[in-house]
């Protein structure tokens, strides 16, 4: 069996924050009626967390993100994806749904450093202040010209998901935004050096 290769093979850059393309992460898109107890049950079984409220993301050992009124993104170890899909198909055989392995269709970036909100605010029209984008909120928006989903783990860690086809564009974008000397210093004092 060939090894899964992440879009940019773990590319990394250090600017006023560090940008790193994280290795392969398992992702499942699950669409259906989120108020259905069957859907709620299967999400709880697979990820160990309840379905997050509108616009929220729950990350533990595995994670679950609210993507739209009828769509969730499950984050789990790559090796568990096919078993999870089998479990979903089994548990929801009577329930109208769609489940797809999108691990290879997405790129995931991890941004660390004091200026994570600064590096994002240069690229997106979304309000990334701690009030509008607190920890645990999933914000689907665009970064420059491509759609992306962003969430904050803590004040020094942010994550970005985008389509694999624009992974290189996204990485270059984040690197340019993170160049030393380029921090607007709106959110992190002192990150502007």
């Amino acid at each position: 069996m060939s090894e899964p290769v992440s879009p940019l093979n773990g590319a990394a850059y250090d600017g006023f924050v560090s940008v790193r393309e994280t290795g392969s992460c398992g992702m499942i898109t699950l669409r259906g009626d989120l108020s259905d107890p069957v859907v709620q049950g299967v999400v709880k079984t697979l990820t160990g967390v309840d379905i997050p409220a509108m616009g929220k993301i729950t990350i533990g050992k595995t994670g679950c993100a609210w993507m739209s009124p009828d769509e969730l993104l499950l984050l789990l170890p790559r090796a568990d994806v096919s078993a999870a899909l089998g479990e979903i198909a089994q548990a929801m055989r009577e329930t109208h749904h769609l489940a797809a392995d999108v691990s290879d269709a997405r790129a995931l970036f991890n941004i660390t450093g004091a200026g994570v909100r600064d590096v994002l605010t240069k690229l997106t029209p979304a309000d990334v202040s701690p009030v509008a984008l607190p920890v645990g909120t999933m914000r689907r928006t665009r970064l420059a010209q491509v759609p992306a989903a962003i969430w904050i783990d803590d004040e020094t860690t942010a994550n970005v998901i985008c389509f694999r086809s624009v992974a290189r564009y996204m990485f270059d974008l984040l690197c340019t935004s993170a160049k030393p000397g380029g921090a607007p210093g709106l959110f992190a004092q002192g990150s502007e050096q």
Partner: protein
Amino acid sequence: MLILTCPCCNIAADETELLPGGQAHITRHGPGSDDADFETYLFMRENPKGVHFERWRHSMGCGKWFHAARCTATLEVFATYSAQTFGPPQHVIDAIKSRRPDWQGPV
């Protein structure tokens, strides 16, 4: 800058995160309709200076279609509401009338 709050995901989305869908609440005239109705359905659009109803898609977000009532002259947004309706609901009409007392109602 136009900012619309998507009624499906409650995000105040910037115009650049949205896809415009043109005039809302158009009656479809399909096969079997007469030529005049079909032409109206295909080509005839309002172009008001003032209150206007539009369709928008939250394309760089939840991906859902929704409706917006806004003023084309001032960009004031009166309300955004569900796509699953044939006409503006009463609370939207009330919101517009409270801001534009001389408005004559939806066309």
